[in-house]
Every structure is written in C-alpha cells, then in structure tokens.
C-alpha cells in the first residue's frame, strides 16, 4: 500500500538471522586468514624464535582447518540463504565449537599450556558471544574450559605427549602445579568475564534494536493513521463541495425562473404596472440578482475546491485568457467610469484549467472595478517572473483596511469600507480566487492602502519553454 517498507517484530528476528548469516560468511573469511596465519607462524617461528615445532602435524592440522573451512564455505553458499533460523544457529554454534577444537589441537602440538597463543580462546568466546544467544555462548565457554583442562591434565599426566616450545624454558613447566593452576585460573576467569561482558553488550544492542523496531513500527502505525485521517478529511471536503454544488444548483434554477418571469413583468410585456409596483418589482429583481450571484459564486467555489485533479488541465497562455476577456472588462470598466489598462507579456504559460483561470481573473477585475470610484484606473497585467507567472490586477480604489486584510480570503467576509461602498457582493469572490489559485499551486498576494488602492498578485508556477508545443490556449 504505502511505498515505505514496513518493519515488524518478525522482521527484527529476520534481521538477526540475516545478520547471523552475514557474520557466518565473515567468520569463514576470517578462518582463511587464521589458517594462513598458522602456516606462516609454523614456518617462521622456528627460524626466528628458536622454538621447536612439530611442523608436519601442525601443517596437517592447518590443512584440515582449511579443508573444513572449504566445506563450510560450500555449505554456506548452497544452503545458508534457505536455511531455517534454528539451522543457521546450529551452523554457527558448531563452527565455534570446531574452531575451539582446532585451537586446542594446535596448542597441544605447540607447547600446550606453555604457549602464549592460549589467550586466543578469548577471540572465539567474543565471536560466540556476538553470534549466539547468551546461554549458547556460555555453553561454548564451558566447552572451551573442558578442552583447556583436558589439554592441561592430559599433558601433565602424560596421557598426551608434551611438545616443548622454547628450548630455553624450564622443561617441567607444564607439570608445575602452581604454574598450571595460575595459568588455568587466569585463562578460565578471563574467558568467563569476556563472555559476560560481550554477551551483556550484545544484549544491550539487541534490546536497542528491538526498541528501534518497535519505535519505527509505532511510527508507521501513526503515519498510516494520519494518512487515513487525511484521506477521510479529503473525502469529506470532496463530499462537502459536491453537496454545496448540488444545493447551489437547485437554488439557482428556481431563482433563474423567478428572474425570467420578473423580467417579463418589469419590461411591461404583460401590460402596464402602477409606478409603485414597478419600483417594487425592480427592487425584487435586485434581491434576486444578489441571490443568483450568491448561487453562482457558491457553484464556482465548490467547483474550484472539488477540482484538483489533472484531467481537465491544459497549457494555458495567460495573455490569451486576458485577451479573451478584455472586451467584457472594458465594458464593465466604462460602465463604472473607470479607466482600464491591459499590459500582457506574450508566452507566459501555465498548466491549468483555462475556465478557472478566467474566472479567477474575472473575480479580481470585477472587484477592482467595483471598488474603484469613477475616474480611477484599473490595470491588468501578465508578467514573466522567471520561475513564476504573475497575474497582477491593481486599482486606485478605496483600498482595504490593514487590519482586515488577513480575513480577506474568508468566505462571506467583506471589508468594512466595501460594505459601505455597495450592498452588492457575496463575499465569496476572493475565496474563489484563493481556491482556484490553490488548485493551480499558485500564491495570492495582496498589497493595499486605504484610499490609495489595491494590488492583487497571483503567482503561478511558470511552465518551462519545452512544454510550449501544442498550446491550445
């Protein structure tokens, strides 16, 4: 549904197994290095350090280690990806155990308890603590201790032959009880402490990981909730617009019929009327006209709000829209005794619905004319502002009080001086402008001073010149 991938608790487990798989591959790679390292040490140690090593058995063990690693490598490549969680865990645990056995065998052939590489058990325990669950890691420690004790005891008791490492050292060190107990005590406690610390750190990391997964889960749930809420809000808005549209339409039809009949009567086509009746009919028509305007504006508003989809959009040349309406504007202006100036740059294109853009313009211009006293001037211009296309309508009219400018785009709001100037006006014109602008991703700016005039700027995203081909408008 949503594009983002969803992380769940199940995924967290998957993540851990996934990580374990990766670590196993890493471990296998590490083992190649270890085998190579052993071979190098077995070759160079006697030459550099005057130590005596049974080279052949050691090379044999190293070769076995390499062969075992090859088997692991093949198994990992063939089966690891498909293996179950439990199988992956067993695979890892057995490797750690086998590594301990190999280490013990190598130590037995190279001085046993006397060999400083004894501390390499620690590496295996760290690896076990990271890879395996704590209880399995401690079992591995137990196994290491058993191997270590077995090595020490069987050499000390003569069960296994002891290979002297350093010819200069006291020969009997591996049988010295004090040395043995000291080395064993230090090594074994070190192994346990290492396991304790490493599993504790790993545990904390796992907890943190779980928390992060939980957090992201709840975040996702919240995001989905929001998405749903937003969706139903939009739906509601859509339904509201549709309802408004139908209601306004049903209001308009009878009003149109009323006006049609009143017009016939007012023009004397049904016979003469007393003067007072004529006056009353004229006033009735005035009120009906106000209601028709309201129904018209409600229709426009609901249409502007209900239409955000791309379907009816075209490339619109703003100058041509203005030119198409210029005649209407001129008639309107001259009827009001207002001078009209039109200045449009060519090739200013936007993506939009031409009728809606025309309606936006119509609302701004008729407002400007309406609130500009006779003798004033209204200017309509279309300008290329680089990234935006600017439609500007400015007048030398009554202006808008500064404190009322913020409410200007509210439905049914009319500025106090506008109400004083004329009773006619639905208070919806600028709401329509705003709704149409929003549907076109355009911004509306107002600049006004009482008594000096008002300038409205609508800033549309300018269409790039590459989109100019085939402009119907």
């Amino acid at each position, binding site marked *: 549904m949503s594009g983002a991938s969803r992380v769940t608790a199940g995924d967290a487990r998957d993540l851990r197994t996934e990580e374990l798989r990766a670590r196993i591959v890493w471990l296998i790679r590490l083992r190649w290095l270890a085998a190579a390292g052993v071979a190098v040490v077995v070759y160079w140690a006697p030459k550099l350090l005057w130590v005596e090593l049974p080279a052949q058995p050691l090379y044999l063990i190293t070769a076995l280690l390499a062969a075992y690693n090859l088997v692991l490598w093949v198994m990992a490549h063939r089966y690891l990806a498909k293996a179950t969680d439990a199988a992956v865990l067993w695979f890892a645990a057995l490797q750690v155990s086998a590594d301990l056995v190999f280490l013990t065998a190598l130590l037995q052939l190279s001085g046993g308890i006397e060999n400083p590489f004894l501390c390499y058990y620690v590496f295996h325990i760290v690896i076990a603590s990271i890879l395996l669950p704590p209880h399995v890691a401690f079992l591995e420690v137990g196994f290491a201790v058993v191997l270590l004790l077995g090595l020490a005891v069987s050499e000390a008791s003569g069960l296994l032959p002891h290979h002297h490492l350093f010819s200069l050292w006291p020969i009997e060190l591996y049988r010295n009880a004090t040395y043995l107990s000291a080395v064993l005590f230090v090594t074994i406690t070190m192994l346990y402490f290492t396991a304790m610390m490493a599993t504790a750190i790993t545990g904390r990391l796992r907890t943190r990981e779980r928390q992060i997964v939980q957090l992201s889960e709840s975040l996702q749930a919240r995001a989905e909730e929001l998405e749903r809420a937003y969706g139903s809000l939009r739906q509601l808005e859509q339904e509201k617009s549709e309802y408004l549209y139908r209601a306004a*339409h049903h209001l308009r039809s009878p009003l149109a*019929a009323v006006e*049609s009949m009143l*017009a016939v009567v007012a023009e004397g086509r049904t016979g003469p009327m007393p003067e007072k009746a004529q006056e009353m009919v004229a006033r009735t028509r005035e009120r009906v006209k106000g209601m028709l305007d309201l129904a018209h504006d409600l229709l426009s508003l609901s249409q502007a709000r209900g239409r955000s989809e791309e379907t009816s959009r075209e490339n619109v040349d703003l100058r041509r829209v203005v030119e198409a309406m210029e*005649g209407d504007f001129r008639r309107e202006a001259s009827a009001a005794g207002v001078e009209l100036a039109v200045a449009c740059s060519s090739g200013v294109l936007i993506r939009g619905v031409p*009728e809606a853009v025309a309606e936006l313009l119509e609302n701004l211009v008729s407002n400007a004319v309406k609130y500009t006293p006779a003798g004033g001037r209204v200017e309509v211009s279309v300008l290329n502002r680089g990234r935006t296309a600017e439609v500007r309508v400015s007048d030398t009219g009554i202006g808008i009080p500064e404190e009322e400018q913020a409410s200007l785009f509210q439905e049914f709001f009319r500025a106090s001086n506008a109400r004083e100037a004329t009773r006619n006006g639905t208070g919806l014109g600028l709401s329509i402008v705003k709704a149409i602008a929003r549907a076109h991703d355009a911004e509306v700016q107002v600049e006004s001073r009482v008594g000096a005039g008002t300038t409205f700027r609508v800033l549309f995203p300018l269409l790039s010149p590459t989109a100019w081909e085939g402009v119907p408008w």
Partner: protein
Amino acid sequence: MNEATGKTVLIVEDDPDVAEAAKIVLEGAGYRTQLAANAADGKEQVRRVRPDLILLDVMMPAGTEGFHFVWDLRKEEDAALQATPVIVMTALHRTTKLRFYPEQSDSVYQPFEYLPVQGFLDKPVAPTALLAAVERALSEAAESGR
C-alpha cells in the same frame, strides 16, 4: 419585428414558468409559440408543427435529455426538419468548454462548438437577449437556406 410574424418557435422546456416567460416575450414580438414539456413531446411536435426555430432547455428531467434531443434532430431524414435552428438555454454554469469562448461579446455566444446548435443562452435569459438570439438564428437560417 415584422419578420417575426408567422414564424413558429417551439419551446422545449420542463419548467412551465420559464416556458411561459419565454412564450410571453416571443409572442409579444410577433412569433407563434408551441410548448413541449419534455424531449419526447418535443420530437413529436417538431414533426407535427415543423417549427422555424427550437428553444431548448438543456437540463430537462433526464439530465442531458436536451443534448440527445439535438443529436436526434440532426439525424432526421427530413432535410428541412434536420436543419431547424436550435437555441439552447442552460443553467449549467461554466461546465468545462460549454461556455468559454474567446469572444463573449454578449450573453448570446458563438455557435456552440460541440453541439450542433445555432445559439446558446445562459439562464436567467433577459427578454432582449432572447429576442436578439432568436432573430439572429432565424436570419442566419434564412441566409443559408437561400
């Protein structure tokens, strides 16, 4: 005004008030009128009365009945009937491409782009605008008929 004498206008309109207002205006100007309250009745009367012009409400009960009325009329076999000028009245309000024309010089717009009709009037229709539209459609029909 004299040209109007004897010409018959068929008013196809489901709203009796609007129909009567138009009837008064047209008869006052010397036209004869016939009323039809729906498309079926309208079609029947077209054949019977053979009007010189049809004044058609586009939003009759079935929603777009008026559109179908026009298309059916333009498919008539009788050439004279098929060519009957039609003026559409609508309260459709700025439905996409229905009434946006480059030149909206008055409330009677350019010949309808998508519907083969001769005139287009927005409700409420002013009596003078109605008469102007009817006169123009009739004189255009007469010219093209000559």
